[in-house]
């Protein structure tokens, strides 16, 4: 029986809901990373606004003047982070060399992003490993994360490099090469279409890279019976064997996440000052939103595992483990990545 991508994603979401501690652990990791910036941001803003008459007008609404003044009078706070963020959305894109102009909180934020990538490698090991355990907990998450960490870090850094190369060669360099030709087009509509094609090509490449990486990770966890090189290629083969289903799961995940953001932007709980949400309820609402989004994220990874699983499983394929019998003793922690397969198909 072949499951379609929506069913895979749906089962993945159900699995994520059944193991909410996975989303909790991801949320905690993010919160800890972000916590590094809370004091610098908070102290700076309190210093700037607490006694300012203008600050009282800004409880709910942003002020263009403050934003411009802040960047001009305090270039050491963010550096070129705003330009960098805006540049990501332009037809020209941004160059890695622009990172050199980051300062203060801006530089720290980007450094944290690199740290987040490393921790992400750990978290994915934990997520994939825990998803295969019938009975698991945060302890399982930590154990599985550490077990897979070296390999997953290599995958993650390789993926990061591939994404960087794809961005450079598919988006930046094509933009540079096509610049004069785009200017020579008849209409701006056609120029936008060219940008759209460049963007679509980039997104397709990024999706392919991500799905290959996630497929390798899922297979790496599911097939400990194979030697590492075989596991790697089995993961690649698995992705190539089910590209539409995997892409479908990614698309459902993207749509669901986009929907959540649309709801957030539409509801805009941050606006309206004290009238809509006092500070504490606002922070709680924000964190609930982050948590829900992370549940969906775990659901995506579970969905990828589902999409790679054949039911009934043929020999030498992999399958989600059957529930362990009630009387079965709890699984002993493994120390060896090459341990026996618990539920061979």
């Amino acid at each position, binding site marked *: 029986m072949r499951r379609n991508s929506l069913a895979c994603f749906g089962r993945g979401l159900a699995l994520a809901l059944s193991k909410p501690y996975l989303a909790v652990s991801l949320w905690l990791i993010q919160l800890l990373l*972000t916590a590094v910036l809370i004091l610098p941001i908070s102290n700076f803003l309190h210093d700037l606004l607490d006694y300012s008459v*203008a600050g009282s007008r800004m409880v709910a609404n942003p002020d263009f003047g403050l934003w411009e003044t802040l960047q001009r009078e305090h270039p050491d706070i963010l550096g070129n982070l705003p330009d960098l963020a805006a540049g990501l959305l332009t037809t020209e894109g941004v160059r890695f060399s622009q990172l050199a102009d980051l300062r203060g909180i801006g530089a720290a934020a980007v450094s*944290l992003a690199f740290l987040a990538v490393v921790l992400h490698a750990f978290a994915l090991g934990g997520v994939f490993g825990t998803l295969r355990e019938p009975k698991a907990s945060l302890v399982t998450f930590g154990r599985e994360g550490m077990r897979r960490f070296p390999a997953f870090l290599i995958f993650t850094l390789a*993926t990061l490099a591939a994404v960087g190369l794809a961005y450079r060669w598919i988006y930046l360099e094509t933009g540079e090469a096509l610049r004069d030709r785009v200017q020579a087009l008849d209409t701006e509509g056609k120029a936008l279409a060219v940008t759209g094609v460049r963007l679509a090509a980039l997104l397709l490449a990024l999706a392919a890279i991500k799905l290959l990486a996630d497929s390798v990770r899922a297979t790496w966890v599911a097939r400990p019976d194979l030697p590492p090189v075989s596991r790697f290629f089995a993961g690649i083969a698995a992705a190539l064997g089910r590209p539409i289903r995997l892409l479908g799961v990614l698309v459902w995940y993207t749509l669901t996440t986009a929907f959540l953001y649309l709801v957030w932007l539409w509801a805009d709980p941050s606006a309206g000052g004290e009238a809509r949400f006092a500070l504490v309820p606002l*922070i709680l609402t924000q964190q609930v939103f982050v948590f829900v989004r992370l549940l969906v994220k775990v659901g995506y990874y579970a969905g990828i595992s589902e999409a790679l699983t054949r039911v009934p499983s043929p020999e030498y394929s992999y399958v989600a483990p059957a529930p362990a019998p009630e009387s079965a003793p709890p699984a002993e922690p493994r120390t060896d990545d090459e341990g026996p397969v618990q539920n061979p198909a």
Partner: protein
Amino acid sequence: MVSAKTPRRRPGFFDILLAVPMLTAVAALGQTSPLTPPIASYEISCRLDTDRRTIEGTELLTWTNRTSRPAETLQFHLYLNAFRNQLSTLWKESRGEGRRRGERIPESWGSVEILRMTLQDNTDLLPTLAYIAPDDGNREDRTVAEVRLPRPVASGQTVSVAIDFRSRLPRVSRRTGWKGPFYMVVQWFPKVGVLEEAGWNCHQFHAWSEFFSDFGDYDVSMDLPVRYRGKVGATGKQVEERVSTSGDRVIYRFRQASVHDFAWTADPGYVVVKDHFHEAGLHDVDITLLVQPEHASQAERYLRAARAALSGYGRVLGAYPYDTLTIVDPPWGARQAGGMEYPTLITGGASYSAPRSVHTPEGVTVHEFGHQFFYGLLASNEFEEPYLDEGFNTYMTDRVLAAAYGPNHVNLSIFGLKFPLGIDMHYPVDANRRFFEVSTRDIHAGPSWKYIDSRSYAAMSYSHTALALATLERLLTTPVMDRALRLYADRWRFRHPKIADFIAAVNDAAGKDWTWYFDRTFFSSNEVDYAVEEATSVRAKAPKGLFEKEGKLEEGPPPDLARPRGWTSVVTVTRRGAAALPVEVLLRFEGGKTWRGSWDGEARWTRFTVTGPRLVEAVVDPDEKILLDTDRFNNGRRVEKDPRAAARWTSRSVFWVQNLLDFLTVAW
């Protein structure tokens, strides 16, 4: 000197041209009555060759010496030669960059060659022609030429010069040229400079300024391929359209009196939209919009902006006196032709996605129309005092836009599509914030090419001047400012005013001398920044110590001092910038009471001590009159801190950092 390859044409052109029968009908066609005595008038016939991208033209210049001294030479602008090669002054100053950041001048060359130049008696002036570079001595720059006259032109005397020329147009770069079938033909013909008492004022073509000419009457015929029929726009009024007998060409003729330049455009893709402006007390104007098909849905926005500008500028500066206004919407890839002004013709700029809350194309339309006054009617020298043109116009643009549309909005450009962010950008401060980035780098003391860089030129000429004038308006009050502007406009219409003339108009309108204001703002790079450094309020206490009671010194205050009421509030206001301007200070107390005082701002600081209700906050410049203040966020201070804004923005920042981290990690 002229190239040796230049072919010589037959003499007698002058006589032939005069004999053309159509000229006899000139008086009956179009707007013919000059609004000012002409100094430099032109009759031009030209032919566009779309294969070679050239214009072959014949020109009859009728020039009158209005100075008291005889003229021994004539100087001409040959501005298309700025695109001749990379050694021109324009190319060097711009370093090959286009008008907008990140754009490059395409390597497509342009030039204008004078093939023949004779006086009415057929005296050949061409052998005396020499290229000069009065601004920078660049011997490779060919944008100014001088010819020596066989006999000086006496004061009040008129001379006619017949010129054959060939203009080669570059691909649109820095305002002029072609892009596909689109043509923006500006700065295209040999144009005489301005003779002043001190001599010729004829500057080279620079990166950031190009306009200074005398008024005259223009009569221009253009011969184009027939596919351009109905798709041509130009300075002035169209008085003729006819298809050639062969049927493959179309000839247009436009006339306009009392202008100082002539520009034209053609594009078979134009959608032509007509409108008419009528408002009591102002001159009726026929508006023609030549818009690209992909921007046709924005035609009404263009036209509404034009009507708002005709009304807004006309009410303050006097009616726009011409019968026509043509608005050109350049196509994609020709943006460098957009946002420009020529007599009765302006170029706008629209984008594919144009949210209504973002003032594009409205802003550029209002601004370029405004140049019909500042540059057009008040023909100041853009080279030497660029702010009289761009800055004054930016100030008026902000006023018209604010009145007609309210605040602009911040937009986010996502892969070329614009999306409004719902954040207000107020005129004039937010529209001119680029000045604050360079506020102490430059002053208005030199010609346009002497600013430290293009950023500084733009910030000073446009934004600094606009903010200085807006500040002046708030100090003078709007009616007085309007009186000053009207006085300036009426006195100097069809002339070449200087900044001293505007200052004189301000002084006359205000009834006192405001020269000090210009010294401290226009002609100084000093920064303006006032701040409330301290705002405290403590309950008044009875004084301690020895006091006289019934002739004796006793410890403890007398009864009238023993129970003080209210609070003692202390406010310290400082002048952090070097520039001193008078400011007001507002103290707001509990119970809604306020106290307002003024400070001349000369000292570095001043302190206000008030006893009464408890102080809530103190604000310097509470009515936001001093728009040149580089940091408005230190202008007010509360006694009690209000951490709500900082707390909420911290939570929002942290929330989005969380999301950003997740976004960055999810990809790998």
